[in-house]
């Protein structure tokens, strides 16, 4: 065993020195990553290019703006600031609202989802209420929240919360139901209390379910914050977009959307990192997974 156990570099070395036609997996990975990025960049360039061209030559930039204008708007925001203060301040406000809403909503969704997922009686009783609540339009709720919680941050957090909560809840619920009964039985036999079954079997089993929902949930949290800001606010990216709408400033609308999108991608990167850490025990599927 020991001679083979020389860390991560060993594999590359072994395969490199072997002088067989087997491809070097590290180089393959590098190549692959390069391809992926190239295609991505190409797509973005294509998209922006065709947008710019069509708007310049064919259609009316009044509605569709164009990338160069949007870019100019972004530059203006980040250098000269916006009509409602520094762009960073607005970003910070929206981010604070959505992160809080996300954290609270995800926590509540996970806890409640897992509890109801494991208790059939509770689930039977509560299910219709939760499903009904899920159908309440958030835009109406946002208005109610402004009335209940005021114009401050809390009403936006509440809006983000309800959006995140339901997205996470349904997955946590199903994830808790899908747990392999064999594993639960084994744990019980090994002496696990109910709480221990929950924490050591149900939660890890439901992890991939929960993580899947978290991927969309941060986007929802951002949306919640923006909807809240649309309903009533004094700062934030949502208000910035709303102002642009009011002033027929299409470039401003798109610029605001881009800023929000970038926020979402950053959050996504954090989540992916977390996912890779939490699901380390999985067989890696990169190289040998059958494509489709």
């Amino acid at each position, binding site marked *: *065993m020991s001679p083979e156990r020389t860390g991560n570099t060993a594999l590359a070395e072994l395969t490199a020195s072997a002088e067989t036609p087997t491809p070097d997996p590290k180089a393959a990975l590098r190549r692959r990553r390069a391809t992926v990025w190239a295609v991505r960049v190409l797509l973005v360039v294509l998209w922006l290019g065709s947008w710019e061209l069509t708007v310049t030559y064919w259609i009316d930039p009044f509605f569709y703006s164009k990338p160069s204008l949007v870019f100019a708007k972004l530059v203006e925001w980040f250098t000269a600031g916006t009509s409602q203060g520094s762009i960073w301040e607005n970003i910070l406000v929206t981010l604070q609202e959505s992160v809080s809403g996300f954290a609270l909503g995800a926590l509540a969704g996970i806890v409640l989802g897992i509890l109801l997922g494991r208790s059939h009686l509770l689930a039977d009783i509560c299910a219709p209420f939760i499903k009904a609540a899920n159908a309440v339009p958030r835009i109406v709720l946002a208005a109610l929240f402004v009335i209940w919680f005021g114009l401050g941050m809390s009403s936006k957090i509440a809006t983000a919360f309800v959006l995140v909560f339901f997205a996470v809840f349904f997955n946590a619920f199903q994830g808790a139901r899908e747990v*392999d009964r*064999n*594993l639960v*039985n*084994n*744990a*019980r*036999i*090994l*002496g*696990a*209390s109910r709480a*221990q079954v929950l924490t*050591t*079997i149900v939660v*890890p089993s439901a*992890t991939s379910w929960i993580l899947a929902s978290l991927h969309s949930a941060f986007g929802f949290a951002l949306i919640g914050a923006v909807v809240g800001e649309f309903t009533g606010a004094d700062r934030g990216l949502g208000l910035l977009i709303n102002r642009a709408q009011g002033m027929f400033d299409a470039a401003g609308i798109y610029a605001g959307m881009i800023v929000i999108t970038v926020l979402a991608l950053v959050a996504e990167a954090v989540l992916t990192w977390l996912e890779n850490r939490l*699901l380390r*025990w*999985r*067989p890696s599927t990169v190289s040998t997974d059958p494509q489709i």
Partner: protein
Amino acid sequence: MDDPVIELRGATKRFRGATGGVHTAVRDLTLSVGRGEFVAVVGPTGCGKSTTLSLVSGLEPPSEGEVLVTGRPVRGIPDGIGYMFQNDAVLPWRSVLDNVAAGPRYRGSSRAAAREKARGWVGRVGLAGFEKYYPHQLSGGMRKRVALAQTLVNEPSILLMDEPFSALDVQTRALMQDELLRLWSGTGAAVVFVTHDLEEAVALADRVVVMTASPATVKASFDIPLPRPRDVEELRLTPEFLDRYREVWDSLREEVAKSRERSAQRVA
């Protein structure tokens, strides 16, 4: 037998079968296992052996009849029980070491103590060096041995084992059998050991129970009055052993033939 540890009294277990029918897996089963007794259970495949174990373990309630462990009716999982499933149920997200340490952790050991204990058991089942592997990185036989260590580390006073050694090569199996006997001999634990290997059954057990074809009930019970401690490999060639073996074999063969016939009838 006075003061049995495990007692099934007319236990019946029915399942909802396919297309809404009812499938009786175990019918009117009466069986007792005494303190420190090693009972091997053999029977045709699909007769209801695993179901019987799940009744004893408290994982499934009987449809009728009574199941008692240490004199009390089974509600939930009785204390001191260890059950090694037919399909290994190791936790995929835990390394070998942490899988084996699960039992002690559940029962309140500190992490360090549990790991220490687990390390010993990982070695005893021949997996030293694989402590940090995840189950998907192990072979079938290795996973089975993780499950074995996971069960034994708890030092159960009632041990239910469902084909524990079926995925092991002959030699490893012999080693594990010896290990099991060695461990068991001191403890006074009651063992119910399901196996398809008659040699194994006769070599290890105080008593071999032969089950009928589905639905299962006890067809016959054979005492194996071979002296202990036993050396499994040597024992195998003694005439007493062969006699016992023949006896059990005849009984079982009849049952299996019956089950075959029935299935043939169903086709017709």
